[in-house]
């Protein structure tokens, strides 16, 4: 008898419901809570940006005010064309978060469909989908995205396609392995004994039990996508300028960061903070969802 069996569950008086248990465990993880707060703050500021920061400030150039270090008027200072870095970073955030969410959304949905089908039905369906993901994963994701950008050219929509194509195989793989483990559980066999249809089993039994770890995967995945968007932006094959995007801002100012360090450091910090908070929340959520991690 090891420790886990040693603790018998108590008599049937109402224990905390599952959601409350997860919440308690999540709030116990300080870093995760901070991550959540930062994430929500970032989301809110970039969502409500047009209300309190009109777009003109992003493109307004004035040579007189170029290269100002962060001051009262320009919180993050200005770049070589005198454009306000604060406005550009905030609007840049809108693009990164928006594109990230859309990409991870597409990858998540297609991942569930492909991964779910492969994991649940197995046999020919499984081999075909798995061989296809093997091919797509034989080359690093970013190379795949770059070749798609090379083919389709630059632009927000084209970049979304490029990124999701490189993400779908990984997502499908995770969903497939989660579904396969779940499919072997006895409660799925039980569902078959009382005549539950295949689709009924997939959507009422398997997907709900698989959602937990998948959401953690999406959190972490979103962090990765934001990094990729910034990287494509930096390489100059992301969203065409002058639309502000974190990666492009850094690459534009790369030449001047020797003497104007703030131009390089601040946008980079924003990316890191966004991805870091996503990882903290993902980490906290995984520990909260996984009852095994007791101490």
């Amino acid at each position, binding site marked *: 008898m090891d420790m886990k069996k040693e603790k018998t569950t108590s008599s*049937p008086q109402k224990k905390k419901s599952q959601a409350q248990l997860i919440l308690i465990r999540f709030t116990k993880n300080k870093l995760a809570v901070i991550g959540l707060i930062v994430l929500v703050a970032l989301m809110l500021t970039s969502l409500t940006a047009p209300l309190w920061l009109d777009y003109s400030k992003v493109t307004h150039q004035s040579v007189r005010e170029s290269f100002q270090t962060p001051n009262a008027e320009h919180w993050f200072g200005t770049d070589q064309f005198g454009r306000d870095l604060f406005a550009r970073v905030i609007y840049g955030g809108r693009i990164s978060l928006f594109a990230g969410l859309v990409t991870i959304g597409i990858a998540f949905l297609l991942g569930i469909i492909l991964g779910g089908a492969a994991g649940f039905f197995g046999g020919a369906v499984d081999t075909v989908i798995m061989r296809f993901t093997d091919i797509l994963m034989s080359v690093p994701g970013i190379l795949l995205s770059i070749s798609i950008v090379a083919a389709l050219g630059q632009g927000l929509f084209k970049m979304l396609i490029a990124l999701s194509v490189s993400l779908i195989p990984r997502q499908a793989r995770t969903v497939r392995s989660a579904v396969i483990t779940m499919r072997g559980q006895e409660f799925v066999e039980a569902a078959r004994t*009382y005549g539950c249809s295949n689709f009924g089993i997939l959507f009422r039994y398997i997907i709900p039990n698989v959602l937990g770890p998948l959401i953690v995967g999406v959190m972490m995945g979103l962090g990765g996508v934001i990094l990729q968007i910034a990287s494509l932006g930096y390489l100059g094959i992301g969203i065409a300028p002058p639309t502000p995007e974190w990666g492009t801002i850094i690459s534009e100012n790369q030449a001047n960061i020797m003497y104007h360090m703030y131009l390089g450091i601040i946008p980079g910090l924003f990316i890191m903070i966004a991805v870091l908070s996503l990882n903290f929340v993902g980490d906290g959520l995984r520990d909260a969802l996984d009852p095994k991690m007791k101490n």
Partner: protein
Amino acid sequence: MSEVLIETRNLKKYFPHKLGQVHAVDDVSLRICAGQTLGVVGESGCGKSTLGRAIIRLHQPTSGEVLYKGENILNLKGRDWRRVQTQMQMIFQDPYSSLNPRMSVKQLITEPLRVNHVAANKAELEERVRSTMELCGLPDRYDNVYPHEMDGGRRQRVGLARALALNPEFIVCDEPVSALDVSIQAQILNLLMDLQESRNLSYMFITHDLCVVRHISHQIMVMYMGQVVEYAPTDEIFENHAHPYTAALLSAIPTTDLSRRNRERVVLKGEVSNPINPKPGCRFAPRCPYASEKCNEPQNLTEIAPNHFVACHECAKQAGG
């Protein structure tokens, strides 16, 4: 003898394997009458769970027939199969993994009724779930309790209630009490026996524990590596068993009766052999103290006493069958 509810004829179930075929269930013929319990006993890997799942078509059998009230159900489709399927249900060994963790007790028991659209309206559905829970000793304060909030014994009651919701006539019980503590085990066994009497249910009770099976079954079938070695009424198995494997099983069971403490024991040598592409004939031969050349030919069940079958030419000869 009441009329036969379930009958199988030469039922076989082979699983594909890299190196060949695993003969999980090999040519099993059995009969279960209404209101009776057939105990299926054997060690791990003998195919007893596969047999139970093959009968209710959880695993599609490789060959042979399964007759429900005389009608072969293996290739029924659509409405006909659904009609028979609701008559046959199953309860599982592991109370922790046989209930969907995301569903409350009420939802778990309502599922079979909802899937088969059995209840005319919501009120009837509620009433039916209520009565089934009552039957299994689950008061209604359990309605929205989740599986992780209950211990093994109560979870097994929920599993039973879920199986009973459709008013089946036949339930396959796959080691339902093995994962439970002794004191809770007795509660579930008594519940199963009470339900059998009140609702004329028939069970196939699968277990590795001969004491438990003696207590609950009318007939017992001993299996070894997919083959039936002995099949007889309960007292026949315990009082005058014929097959050496049954003898070894019985002598290996520790008993609290001190007088039997230093009884003569039949301790088997060696281990279960490889189940892939087994040779014809008796698969117990390599470990059997009385093995002879003839054991390599296929053994068929010979009746050595009324309803007492044994698959061993040697024992049949000795018993003058």
